[in-house]
């Protein structure tokens, strides 16, 4: 059944979905045409993921109707959705760690003859799909659990492409990717749309929406507040106002003028890690925020992890307050006051069924205990303070973390690390998956920690974030620091040039 020119491929109207205590969707409308890239915007918790899960057949809506190519359909299970030609890249990675890359890509629609899996064919097709995404280097026999987050994201994408689809839904696919990989993704998206495939694209990065999007639908508190906006030329201020209901002017907090007398807290000298990075030296003073810019895989995260002792460097020293730390010892780093909020926060250490406040306080429990007994009230009070500061929604710290939206879960983990009393704070991608409104709150929180005398190192794939937040910027390329200087004396283009130089796109 083909769709007549201009007619919508998908029409969702009046979709309602309630969870115990939350009305996640409260009458959402969404119309998608063939061959378009339809962007879905909204704050953390607005209901984007819930909506696409209804579309994928993973959630059953309480009310509302769905038409596919003009005909009413009921998407009661994931396979009905898949059979219609809808494939989905979920926000939470939905892979089976113990299966190989190829097995994951074709899970549920294995290539088989008489029930027997055709392994050669599977591997060949999987390799071709990965190549299409520019990732020939991922071996299809590798167990997915051993891939880093960005690799797993690529596998999820390959999996979505492996279906013969008419609509691909992507829930924050770029969160784990760097700029170069995002460009490859966009190329693939354009490829698909010229073949008439429609794409629903969710992202918190407005510049991506401008680049790849055709039309925008904005969700707020489970309702469609605007639809059919032009992705290219709706003013940013307008989009933000629609999403948040308020005007946000200053995204980045005011820099505190540098204090030249501030003591150097963290000194890293000639740090090297076999085949990953070499000769990395930098210092961070009390009250200073240093930003590390570079591609995913350039060694940024590994540098932080080595400073933290989670990896054993081959050479070089880390000093805090002039005292040299034992290499490769997390214990020594923690004792010296270093804290690391790691990159893959969601898979690492969220207690999904525990309430929000316990997740926030779990790493600083000692502070709330007397003789081993926890004082629940002060624990809750502190947690509430941070949850408010980072705008975790819905308000209240008693809900299990599992029931929060992706971005709000991120905020909870970040709050945990911000609450910890440390002197040197290492943040790896602190705002991944967080909406525009909450970002400025996170930046403000980081700045105020620095103002209280903390030394902060921030790694981010978003150059704008590094430039806006940090006092000083280090650019990392292929494991080496290729530039170091004040953030005010370099612009985005220059950073991108430095980052990309010599690397084939």
């Amino acid at each position: 059944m083909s769709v007549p020119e201009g007619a919508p491929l998908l029409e969702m109207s009046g979709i309602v979905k309630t969870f115990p205590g939350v009305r996640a969707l409260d009458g959402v409308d969404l119309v998608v045409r063939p061959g378009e890239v339809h962007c879905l915007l909204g704050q953390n918790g607005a209901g984007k993921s819930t909506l696409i899960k209804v579309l994928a057949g993973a959630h059953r809506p309480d009310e509302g109707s769905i038409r596919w190519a003009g005909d009413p359909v009921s998407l009661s299970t994931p396979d009905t959705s898949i059979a219609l030609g809808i494939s989905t890249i979920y926000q939470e990675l939905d892979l089976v760690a113990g299966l190989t890359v190829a097995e994951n890509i074709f899970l549920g629609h294995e290539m088989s003859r008489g029930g027997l899996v055709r392994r050669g064919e599977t591997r060949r097709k999987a390799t071709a799909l990965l190549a299409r995404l520019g990732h020939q280097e991922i071996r299809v026999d590798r167990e997915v659990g051993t891939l880093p987050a960005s690799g797993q994201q690529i596998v999820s994408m390959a999996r979505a492409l492996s279906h013969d689809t008419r609509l691909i839904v992507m829930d924050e696919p770029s969160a784990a990717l760097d700029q170069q990989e995002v460009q490859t993704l966009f190329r693939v998206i354009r490829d698909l749309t010229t073949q008439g495939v429609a794409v629903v694209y969710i992202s918190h990065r407005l510049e991506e929406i401008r680049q790849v999007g055709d039309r925008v639908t904005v969700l707020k508190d489970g309702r469609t507040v605007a639809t059919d906006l032009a992705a290219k030329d709706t003013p940013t201020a307008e989009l933000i106002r629609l999403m948040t209901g308020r005007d946000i002017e200053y995204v980045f907090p005011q820099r505190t003028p540098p204090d030249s007398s501030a003591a150097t807290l963290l000194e890293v000298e000639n740090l090297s890690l076999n085949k990953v990075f070499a000769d990395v030296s930098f210092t961070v003073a009390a009250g200073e925020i240093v930003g590390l810019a570079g591609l995913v895989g350039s060694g940024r995260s590994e540098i932080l992890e080595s400073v933290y002792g989670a990896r054993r460097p081959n050479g070089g020293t880390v000093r805090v307050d002039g005292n040299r730390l034992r290499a490769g010892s997390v214990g020594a780093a923690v004792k010296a006051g270093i804290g690391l909020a790691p990159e893959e926060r969601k898979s690492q250490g969220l207690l999904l069924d525990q309430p929000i406040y316990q997740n926030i306080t779990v790493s600083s429990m000692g502070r709330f205990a007397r003789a081993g007994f926890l004082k629940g009230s002060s624990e809750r009070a502190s947690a509430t303070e941070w949850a408010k500061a980072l705008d975790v929604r819905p308000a209240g710290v008693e809900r299990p973390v599992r029931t929060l939206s992706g971005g709000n879960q991120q905020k909870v983990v970040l709050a945990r690390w911000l609450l910890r009393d440390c002197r040197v704070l290492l943040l790896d991608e602190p705002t991944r998956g967080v909406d525009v409104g909450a970002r400025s709150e996170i930046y403000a929180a980081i700045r105020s920690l620095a103002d209280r005398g903390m030394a902060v190192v921030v790694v981010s794939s978003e150059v704008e974030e590094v430039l806006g937040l940090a006092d000083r910027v280090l650019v990392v390329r292929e494991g080496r620091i290729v530039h170091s200087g004040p953030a005010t004396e370099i612009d985005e283009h220059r950073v991108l040039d430095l980052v990309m130089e010599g690397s084939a796109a």
Partner: protein
Amino acid sequence: MTHQREAVTDGEKPDAGPDSGVVQVPLSGSGKARTGAAGFLLGSSVGRNLGLVVALFVLCLVGVATAGQQFASVDNGLTILRLASVIGVVSVGMTFVITGGGIDLSVGAIVALASVWSTTLATQSLARGNHWTLIILVALIVGMGCGLVNGLLIAYGRVVPFIATLAMLAAARGLAEIIAQRRTQIVSVPGFTDFFRHDVLGIPLLVIIFAVVAAIGWLVLNRTTFGRRTFAVGGNPEAARLAGINVQRHTVALYVIVGLCCGIAAVMIVARTTTGSSTHGTLYELDAIAAVVIGGTLLSGGRGTIVGTVLGVLIFTTLSNVFTQNNLSSSAQSVAKGLIIVVAVLLQQRLAARSNNGST
């Protein structure tokens, strides 16, 4: 202290550089250069199961050293295999449920019930009147029926597998006692007893059945879409569901498979002892789980190996044979068994931790 522990795992996580290649032996064994037909059963997984092979070898050495000719004879070898075959078939079924994220405590009771039901006077006279294979048919149907009930309770009734199969354990054993009135039922259907007296090229039929079940089990788990999906259902049920797999139906199928294996085991036990009894299969659940676990299947699901299970069964059977040959008590046997389980699992965790820092 919590943060420290967490931090360590945090740090080790992304360590998945291209040079950590040693560890990426995929479950299906498809990573190695294609093994020829000869390596069909063992070839692809010999590396992973090397520890078990060595353990079995050491046990045999101990057997030869302590019991000499008596242990090393062909007859004794066949005895070990014959003893291993019944519990082996049950363990193959158990490997499927455990890989799929479940557990079945009722296998022994199902074996008892199937053995009793297929040997009642009524069944036997029916078999005599029609065809002796009716006995087999009844045992298989009873086994699959019990498995179906387990599966439905677990998948659709959302009863925890441990509880559902515990209930089945009690109920099936009880039902077996009621049917048999606690008496041992002798099988006197000529066709049946004659058939199982056969052997093929000197190998007892029971052993052949075990080999066939294990081979089919291996094929299904490693080479079919059903097997592939079993790993997914056990490893990440939500991901499996989102991939369009009907997780509930799949779960039911897994319990029916283990039930079928119990039915086959019941036929084998009836053939070996020429009796049906409500005491058959006592504690099989523990023996099967132990064999599966030391074989390398993860109790939490998502990883399973039939070859490992077979080796696990052989290790336990050889162990008790060595003990019997040396006239040691069955209590000493149990102690040794316990030790083997703990050591094997500790070893496995070390290996798993090394090969697997990266998956959740």
